[in-house]
């Protein structure tokens, strides 16, 4: 892939080169036209001067031209030629022409005609044809002069002069002009190329430094950030975004690392329990009481691991959005009672009371199964961590944060006493595998509340936890 610098260099050079070439071409054209015009004006002026030397009197017409005073016509080396003629007869040729004739256009049109053609000596020349009325000395009034048998008629054919001059100097000058313009173009282009490279090098230096800095980034340097002070305004947004991204990546990596460590730890404890239970049971196979206890432990451990795997799977499904929610009006009170049913026995053992404060007939538009999973986890959490003789309350959350029947129900709230929790614990409540004391003593793996948060996100419910007067309040409501 070509670099940005190479691309910009190419584009700028091609663009500048095209502009220079175009400018050079127009400049040359202006110079060439102007010189040609001057050349032609001089040629025509000289032709007119020569034409004034033509006189007619009676039947005679002649050219009063003292060639001694015009050395350019004296010999072929003079480089200029002329030829006068009237219809049917040549009046006069320059000495440089000898007996030859100058080329004439097939049809004479207008007073002055200019064209390029080789001179009699073979060099490039410029020709002018001038049609004119010669100066008439005297002739009887009303009588037309007769030129060698041809009656002179002022309205009829006129005398003609062809004057030719070599244009070698002009051509050479134009060629030199072209050459110098071309050389100048190349020099300018080369200079421009250097200037462009230098400017781009200086201008793109912060980008190069940024590129090198980004190239050096790896997993080990996720904690580092790109210094935004030396960055041009145009890419400061990019740097800000990269720094944000690095921050998020660092957090994700740390979370991933912690997750793996937690998961390994979470599985090691039941595995250690399972291995110890089976080894001890197998060591004393003739002790039925010990074998039975070991088998009982093995089963309990299996169920515990099954619950961990189930929660992890549910969490993974929820986070990968494999199972999109199917919304329906879910009767909230009935859903709470259904989620409470399997917990009724352990709750009764701890004398924990359910206070279902959701009125009959209140429905929450959401996914029934996912809401059930949320309620199960929240209620199980409350029962598992609740002190004996405690309670767990469920309330509907209205659109105005109240619970009046006029309000639309947008969520629910689960409240239970949590004397062990401190405000500092709240930010960690929804972290995977988090437990208050970091121990693995309970039957919970610290996945219930993260699953609630994840399912809440899937259902478009914002999940928040708060400690109010020693009670943990978990609130799920549509944003």
């Amino acid at each position, binding site marked *: 892939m070509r670099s940005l610098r190479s691309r910009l260099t190419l584009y700028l050079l091609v663009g500048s080169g095209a502009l220079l070439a175009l400018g050079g071409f127009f400049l040359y054209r202006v110079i060439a036209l102007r010189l040609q015009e001057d050349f032609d004006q001089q040629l025509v002026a000289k032709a007119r001067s020569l034409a004034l030397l033509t006189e007619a009197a009676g039947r005679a017409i002649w050219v009063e031209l003292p060639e001694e005073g015009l050395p350019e016509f004296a010999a072929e080396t003079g480089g200029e030629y002329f030829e006068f003629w009237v219809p049917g007869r040549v009046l006069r040729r320059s000495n440089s022409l000898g007996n030859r004739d100058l080329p004439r256009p097939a049809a004479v049109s207008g007073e002055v005609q200019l064209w390029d053609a080789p001179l009699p000596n073979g060099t490039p020349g410029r020709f002018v044809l001038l049609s004119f009325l010669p100066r008439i000395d005297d002739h009887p009034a009303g009588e037309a002069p007769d030129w060698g048998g041809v009656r002179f008629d002022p309205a009829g054919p006129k005398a003609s002069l062809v004057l030719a001059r070599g244009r070698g100097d002009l051509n050479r000058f134009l060629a030199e002009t072209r050459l110098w313009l071309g050389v100048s173009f190349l020099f300018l282009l080369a200079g421009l190329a250097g200037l462009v490279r230098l400017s781009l090098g200086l201008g793109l230096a912060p980008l190069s430094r940024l590129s090198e800095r980004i190239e050096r980034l790896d997993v080990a340097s996720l904690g580092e950030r790109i210094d935004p002070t030396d960055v041009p305004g145009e890419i400061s947004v990019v740097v800000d975004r990269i720094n944000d991204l690095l921050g998020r990546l660092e957090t994700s990596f740390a979370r991933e690392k912690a997750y793996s460590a937690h998961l390994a*730890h979470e599985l*090691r*404890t039941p595995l250690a329990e399972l291995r110890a239970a089976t080894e*001890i049971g197998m060591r004393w196979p003739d002790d039925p009481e*010990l074998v039975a206890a070991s088998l009982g432990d093995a089963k309990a*451990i299996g169920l515990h691991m099954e619950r961990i795997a189930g929660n992890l799977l549910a969490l993974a499904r929820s986070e990968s959005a494999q199972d999109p929610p199917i919304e329906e009006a879910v009767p909230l009170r009935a859903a709470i009672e259904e989620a409470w049913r399997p917990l009724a026995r352990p709750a009764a053992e701890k004398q924990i009371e359910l206070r279902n404060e959701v009125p009959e007939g209140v429905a929450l538009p959401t996914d029934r199964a996912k809401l059930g999973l949320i309620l199960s986890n929240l209620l199980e959490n409350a029962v598992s961590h609740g002190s004996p003789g405690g309670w767990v309350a469920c309330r509907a959350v209205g659109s105005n944060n109240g619970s009046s029947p006029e309000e639309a129900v947008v969520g629910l709230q689960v409240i239970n006493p949590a004397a062990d929790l401190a405000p500092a614990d709240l930010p960690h409540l929804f972290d995977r595998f988090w437990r208050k004391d*970091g121990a693995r*003593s309970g039957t919970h793996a610290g996945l219930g509340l993260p699953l609630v948060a994840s399912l809440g996100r899937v259902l478009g419910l914002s999940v928040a936890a708060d400690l109010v007067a020693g009670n943990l309040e978990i609130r799920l409501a549509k944003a």
Partner: protein
Amino acid sequence: MRLLLVEDSQRLRSTLERGLRKLGHAVDGAANGSEGLWLATENSYDAIVLDLLLPEMNGYEVLAELRNRGKSTPVLILSAKDLVEDRVRGLDLGADDYLVKPFAFEELVARLQALVRRGHQVASPTLTLGPLSIDLVAKRLWCAGREVRLTAREFGVLELLAMRQGEVVTRQDLWEHLYEFDAEASSNVVDVLVYSVRKKLESCKGGHLAAQLIQTRRGQGYLLDTAASEEGAESP
């Protein structure tokens, strides 16, 4: 031997207690760091098995506090934390061994026995005392080349006396070596066990001399002394 097991996983704790008791050890269990520290401070254990992630006080804190209080009881850390820095930290704080979960029960037992032997400065797992040969690992006793079958508690008595040979072991020490913290103390249970061991030793060839290895020091306790046995052998 008497062990303290500080482990917050109730299932693992009860399983290990079951297995270790079955091997004849007295095991006290603690479910959190505070309780473990209190038990370790208040009682004399041959070894402590200590988890690291514990409620209330973590294992590192328990260990550091234990050593601060001058307790030199051998400590084996039993944890799922397997990073080198975790092990180094534990050993630096005064642990004597580190075993990562999951583990083999046999390995745990072997490491605990090695720790206890080291605590009593007994290098070999087999002790030879006069006609007696005691395998501390297999928990077996030979007297004059013939195996003598002892119960777990009887072996525990002999084991402690053998590891502290030449030293008077009080009845209280023997009691604590054999029974858990919450066992109901009986005034003569140690005497009965010592009597039972002597009786079984007498039954072997040359057993009289073997039984004399265990001497009673009135008002003090018991002493396993091979020199006394040799003197007895020389006297008519």
